[in-house]
């Protein structure tokens, strides 16, 4: 319908041209990029204080190779690893490096224990030293073999390929009671909570915009002119869809701007401080399939990437877009109905309550859902349309069965159709009613009016 397009265009253009929209669109990515870039930056920042690192080297191959410098002093201890871990907090050591002995092959694994997230430079230094040492060891073996088989050319050609080695340095934070909590799983929690919160804020911010828009049209009385040209339902849907486009525009701009800022920052860091990260990554790629590589804990950003890859990025984007829009549409119509029912914003409080309760409940429950993403409460809340947009997003990174997802999505669509129908019936009467604030009973009567 042509007229609904006109309304969408007006709602969209007037909002996108606003100063507040432009400011938010620029500030948002800067803040978000800062949240990601600053910790990485801090981790790579040179620290002037010297740090002592205790080394338990069961192989006896590596300790000699660690050179003390301005920042790091390595000293060897000869305790059992478990006692060393227990005693770590009583010493003034910054970290504890443990290189276990391997009976058959050369060691390719080491553990770096620390109270805090260890410095990125330290980690890459240790990895570099160890890789180099192992490569040397392997080369020696190859050369020995060459000598034995009288300069076999074929083996000689294979040398560079076969000696490439990657070091797995797991960083483990020493928690209270000596619990080894890996930071690894937390990232999927962060993804879940973050996407859930995005939907929560989007519904509130843009829902409130719809409500204010409706109240503005009502109090300025322009609505009477408009309803003489367009059906109330078209006005309401035009407004809802126009504002949805504003939200999508903002989201897309945020994603594009944030990732380009991070990209630029990454590039700047890489050239700036020559972290051996890129070298190590390329080493890793050349490792033959049978090599014993598990996790490559190089830096927090690559770690995030790994986790993101492991939790199905495409799935998250698809479901996020669906619940982002579905949740918005479900609530948007209700916000429009509230705007139509009242004369000014102060009267909205009472009617806002039924809308805010499920949303706030979702956010409050999200932290419990994350502990137990497949519990009964989590499953039910991710299926009921009023709470599903947030709770389902919290559950998605942990994996959700397809039939639950389908049921939840189907119900959300039904819920959206239901609230829109209900809201449209309130809206068409409400926009022409002035005077005292209606009661719930009166609003119910509006719903039942025919015509």
């Amino acid at each position: 319908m042509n007229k609904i397009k006109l309304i969408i265009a007006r709602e969209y253009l007037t909002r996108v041209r606003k100063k507040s929209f432009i400011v938010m669109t620029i500030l948002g990515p800067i803040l978000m990029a800062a949240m990601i870039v600053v910790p990485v930056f801090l981790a790579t920042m040179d620290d002037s204080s010297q740090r002592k690192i205790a080394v338990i080297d069961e192989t006896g191959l590596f300790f000699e190779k660690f050179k003390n410098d301005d920042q790091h002093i390595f000293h060897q201890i000869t305790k059992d690893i478990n006692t060393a871990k227990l005693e770590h907090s009583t010493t003034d050591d910054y970290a504890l490096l443990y290189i276990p002995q391997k009976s058959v092959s050369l060691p390719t694994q080491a553990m770096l224990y620390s109270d805090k997230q260890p410095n990125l430079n330290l980690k890459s230094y240790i990895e570099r030293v160890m890789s180099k040492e192992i490569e040397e060891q392997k080369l020696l073996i190859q050369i020995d073999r060459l000598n034995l088989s009288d300069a076999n050319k074929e083996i000689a050609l294979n040398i560079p390929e076969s000696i490439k080695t990657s070091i797995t340095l797991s960083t483990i934070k020493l928690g209270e009671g000596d619990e080894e909590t890996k930071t690894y799983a937390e990232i999927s929690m962060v993804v879940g909570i973050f996407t859930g919160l995005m939907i929560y804020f989007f519904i509130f911010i843009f829902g409130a915009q719809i409500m204010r828009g409706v109240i503005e049209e009502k109090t300025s009385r322009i609505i009477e002119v408009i309803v003489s040209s367009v059906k109330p339902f078209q006005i309401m849907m035009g407004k809802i869809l126009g504002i949805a486009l504003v939200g999508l525009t903002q989201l897309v701009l945020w994603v594009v701007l944030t990732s380009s800022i991070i990209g630029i920052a990454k590039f700047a860091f890489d050239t700036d401080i020559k972290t051996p990260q890129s070298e190590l990554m390329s080493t890793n790629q050349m490792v033959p399939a049978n090599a014993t590589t598990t996790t490559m804990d190089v830096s927090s950003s690559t770690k995030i990437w790994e986790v993101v890859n492991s939790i199905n990025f495409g799935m998250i984007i698809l479901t996020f877009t669906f619940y982002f829009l579905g949740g918005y549409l479900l609530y948007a119509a209700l916000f429009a109905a509230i705007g139509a029912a009242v004369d000014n914003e102060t009267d909205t409080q009472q009617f806002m309550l039924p809308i805010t309760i499920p949303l706030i409940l979702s956010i409050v429950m999200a932290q419990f859902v994350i502990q137990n993403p497949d519990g009964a409460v989590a499953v039910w809340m991710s299926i009921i349309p009023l709470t599903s947009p947030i709770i389902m997003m919290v559950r998605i990174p942990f994996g959700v069965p397809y039939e639950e997802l389908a049921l939840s999505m189907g119900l959300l669509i039904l819920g959206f159709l239901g609230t829109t129908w209900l809201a449209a019936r309130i809206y068409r009467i409400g926009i022409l009613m002035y005077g005292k604030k209606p009661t719930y009973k009166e609003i119910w009567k509006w719903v039942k009016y025919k015509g």
Partner: protein
Amino acid sequence: MELFVAENITKTFTNHTALNNLSIKVPEKSIFGLLGPNGAGKTTLIRIINQITAPDSGKLFLNGEKLSPKHIANIGYLPEERGLYKKMKVGEQSVYLAQLKGLERKEAIKRLKYWFEKFEIGSWWDRKVEELSKGMQQKIQFIVTIVHEPKLLIFDEPFSGFDPINVNLLRDEILKLRDKGATIIFSTHNMASVEELCDHIALINNSQKILDGEVKEVKSRFKTNTFEISYSGFDKDVKQLFNGQFELVGVTKFDESSTAKIKINQGTQNDLLNHLLPHLQIHSFNEIIPSMNDIFIQRVAEANQSKNEQS
């Protein structure tokens, strides 16, 4: 021929009846006054004509066709309570509203520019509405109402908020629109402008039509056969001149002459003149034609009284 016809319209809200079996006929190319006290049901009727609300029962016709959404482009409506988007630019907003009425964008801009020049507000095109005075906003609203050249125009209190100069400007434009072939429904409480502009009227009270017809005809219907004479040359009380046939309604004395209102209960005005000529020096002799204001008040009072008696 009638441009707009409403037949037996009834509209009930939860607690009261807004319109009760109401019928009106609006002749083509005329100005039709829709009158009535506050809360009589005028706004409800106007909203029904605009298809903002639907009647519970009854039929509506525009130009002989059953009223349907396709007629929106043929109707222009200037509501009593009016407003514009405050933050939007005047030109952009006018184009938007004209497009909603079905005009093409280019055509809308062309016509709006013409009207803006005519109303001497062309320089306001790129200003925001909130920067304009109330009178300016009213002008824009008027332009937006008529820009799509509808067959039927509905003006609800169009003159409120205008200064006398702009009232004249607007009145002239309304008359021009009628002369060009538009039919106008004009709702107001200002009876002077009804007398000035309207060709036909309908008076609504308490959800019912209590009076309608051509203005001239309505006025003559309410004539009470009362005449006003101004006279001199009679020093005694004029009362003694009248008996049952002629009734003295009132008398006002001036220095030079006096005026008296006399109602004829029997006979003609010539009989009255014959009766008075021997006694008085008559300067003028006029029939008293009731004003719309008097008719309005009288009819509404009568209707309310009969309603009270019924209940």
